[in-house]
């Protein structure tokens, strides 16, 4: 057992105990079971093999989330407008975003941020070039401006 397994186990156990606040045998056994299950699943996904601890994302993360929240609100209104219009005005297309120079954590952050804003949906990240499905030409144009990519890149530098 490496120190990573032990750290994760301790964090999970502390989280369970603090948040449940009920210390009956049944719940403690359930907690232990879920901690072990999470560790086994994490091992299966290769969580302990790579340097995926993303603490270095720390300081710039709140600002990034705030910006992302703004983008989410904006694109939600955009897509809600498209949905509610009597004539369905959509131009689906696929846009490629080259993220092959980003580290894995930033790449995953970027892919999830793109999916999280309605109107753009990441379909494939395996090659390092994100395949993104866009609902309208407006959302595709927004994505191609590259601010999403630039923000994800600046996250990793700090």
């Amino acid at each position: 057992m490496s120190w990573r397994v032990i750290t994760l186990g301790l964090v999970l156990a502390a989280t369970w105990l603090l948040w449940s606040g009920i210390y009956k045998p049944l719940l403690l056994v359930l907690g232990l079971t879920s901690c072990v299950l999470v560790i086994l699943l994490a091992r299966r996904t290769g969580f302990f093999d790579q340097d995926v601890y993303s603490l270095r994302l720390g300081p710039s993360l709140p600002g990034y989330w705030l910006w992302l929240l703004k983008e989410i609100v904006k694109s939600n209104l955009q897509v809600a407008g498209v949905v509610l219009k009597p004539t369905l005005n959509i131009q689906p297309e696929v846009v490629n975003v080259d993220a092959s120079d980003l580290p894995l954590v930033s790449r995953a952050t970027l892919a999830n941020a793109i999916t999280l804003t309605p109107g753009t949906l990441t379909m494939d990240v395996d090659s390092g070039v994100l395949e993104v499905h866009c609902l309208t030409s407006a959302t595709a144009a927004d994505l191609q401006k590259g601010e999403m990519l630039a923000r994800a890149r600046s996250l990793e530098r700090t």
Partner: protein
Amino acid sequence: MTAGLALDIGSWVLMLAGSFFVFVGGVGALRMPDFYTRMHAASLTDTLGTILILSGVILQAGLTLAAIKLAAIMVFLLLTCPTAAYALANAARLSGLSPRPEQTPGKD
């Protein structure tokens, strides 16, 4: 009393707005022509619908441990929803579903 009323009104507004986005997401999922475009509509429910409704509930909970738990639920949902959406879209992509439908209403 008035502060309580203001909190109540604020949380009602947030929850109603959230319900609106959940509803529009449902309407969109029915109206869109194919799988991928339906997923775009459904993500309204996952994002602003979730954020607004949970924010409204947090206002109701006030400064309690429950509010912190609710905020954590919101963060976890926002982290896991795009992952689930990616798994769905990637599965569709790998099984060969074309992202470009032949007849797309609205384009040329």
